[in-house]
């Protein structure tokens, strides 16, 4: 299965699901009753056709597939593992952002990502950068730019 084939199939899937979603939208109580339906149904149709063309073209041109054209499954590379861990850290950050407040959650998040790429070496640098960045950004945004960031719940700073 090549990337193009995957793209084509995903596009078809999105196209059909989206058209169906648009088709079943309720009619409008004012304005044109179906004006908001026709345009997305058209978009969905176009997407389905595009996906279909890409899949068919890919299916017809079979034979000269190079290694890069298909995704490799199985064991994660170091790079893939780092991305996965960074995403997990990001989701965790989104979850603790409000409860812990900006400064603490950001120190933890940046610390985690910095540790992820730097490993055990230069731990002081990791900690220093994470703390300075978090405090600096907090001061810049909430004091100078007047953008409200979640405060630390206990200390209220």
């Amino acid at each position: 299965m090549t990337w193009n084939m995957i793209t084509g199939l995903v596009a078809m899937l999105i196209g059909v699901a989206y058209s169906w979603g648009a088709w079943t939208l309720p009619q409008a109580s004012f304005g044109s009753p179906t004006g908001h339906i026709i345009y997305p149904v058209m978009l969905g149709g176009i997407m389905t056709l595009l996906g279909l063309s890409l899949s068919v073209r890919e299916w017809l041109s079979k034979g000269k597939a190079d290694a890069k054209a298909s995704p490799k499954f199985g064991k994660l590379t170091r790079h893939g593992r780092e991305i996965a861990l960074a995403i997990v850290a990001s989701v965790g950050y989104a979850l603790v952002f409000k409860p812990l407040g900006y400064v603490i959650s950001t120190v933890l998040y940046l610390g985690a990502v910095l540790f992820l790429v730097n490993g055990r070496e230069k731990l002081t640098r990791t900690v220093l950068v994470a703390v300075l960045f978090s405090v600096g950004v907090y001061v810049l945004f909430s004091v100078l730019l007047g953008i409200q960031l979640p405060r630390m719940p206990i200390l209220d700073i």
Partner: protein
Amino acid sequence: MNEIFSQLLLGFEVALTPINIMWTTLGGVLGTIIGMLPGLGPATGVAVLLPLTFKMGPVGAMITMAGVYYGAMFGGSRASILLNTPGDGAAIATCFDGYPMTQKGRAEAALAMSAVASFIGGMIANVAMVFVAVPVAKFSLRFGPAEYTLLMLFALAATAAMSKEKILQGFIGMTFGLMISTVGLDGLTGVNRFTFGVLELMGGVDFLIIIIGIYALGEVFKSFKSVHDPSFKMQTKFGKIKFTKEDWKRSWPAILRSTPLGFFIGALPGAGGTMAALMAYNNEKNISKHPEEFGQGAVEGLAAPEAANNASSVGALIPMMTLGIPGSGTTAVMLGALLMLGLQPGPLLFQKQPEVAWGMIASMFIGNIILLIVNMPMASILVRVLAVPAKVLYPLILGLAFIGTYAITNSIVDFFILIGFGLIGIFLEKAKIPTSPLILGGIVGATMETSFRQALMLSDGSPKIFYGSPITVTLIALTVFSIAWPFVSSGLKRLKASRSV
């Protein structure tokens, strides 16, 4: 003509106030720094730095954003020259001769020449913009909803059809962007579309978040691969940043030839800086008396793309500013940022808020001079940013991406959208789907749908409104042409090749 000069004078009165000079400098320098970082270009810079402008008021915000935009074009070449890693697409052609110059110990000359070429390209293009902007804006006042729909369709099709091999992928990306723009409360009927009952989605998905997701998060994730590369070392000690008389003699004709080319390509929808720079480079190589030196550190091979990509970045602002329709992913991000700030670029901006439109145009003259100063004597200080280990810089960009998102929408739901699009960014790269059509589709999508439906309401549902006037027919022809062109041009090349054999 007098009108243009009096308006420009008004612009300079606005742009030359101390506070606005400061914003120009701030935007330009920050843009340069972001532009220098590999993988991060003007689009990321504008999206991530947008929150800084929230308190500035419309004029200051516009000036700062413009500074970030062309500052990033200046900065993009630094990493090309010193590391052989382009800061963004438009700086790819700068690697060809810029890096060989560094290898030969001429990094100072390369940095100086790229700054001067960028400066001249940008300045001449600014002058051209002053004269073109008003006529275009006036002409577009004749456009109704049908004309606008088709104009946007043309811009979208031209962007999606940029390469023949990826044409289907380009249109898939574009349609996906258009689909995302339909999420939320429909303005014309008040029906919720595709919100799945999530309250936060009623206002629609904020496209700036998607841009930060794809460009900042996605790029940083992808760069994790290169941060462990030990060969990622650069020269940190420099002599005086200057070039020789001989360099200048070889470069100035190339700069003057490449500037109008870049400006013109930039103003066309779809093409943009990457294409302008590559065309300028090839052009110089073809007419050069010693083409064999190209790729070995020929100084004119560095000057030409640098002048072209800065001129094209100014040219690209014309459709965005005067019509309100961006012709590239980067200017689409600019448009999104300006809409976020409550500014509606387009013909009416020049009439109703001339101090904003002309203040920005005037500030670009000042900004170019400031950036020349920043990039010549102070270049050796600025490029130290590149010496900061990537292992520290990239995690910080992630931090900036999240805080930027929160500042724009104040909602945690958008953090998940952000992460989701970071993942989609990785997928798009693997599947070779270009990102520009997607971004463009997402940003103009809502306006295009509204225009489309308004046109049909005006005509009582008859599609004739889309092909009944000379302007609409021209636009349709242009759209068809832009889709067919990649095929026609490759066919012509094949024909030529078979004849010459």
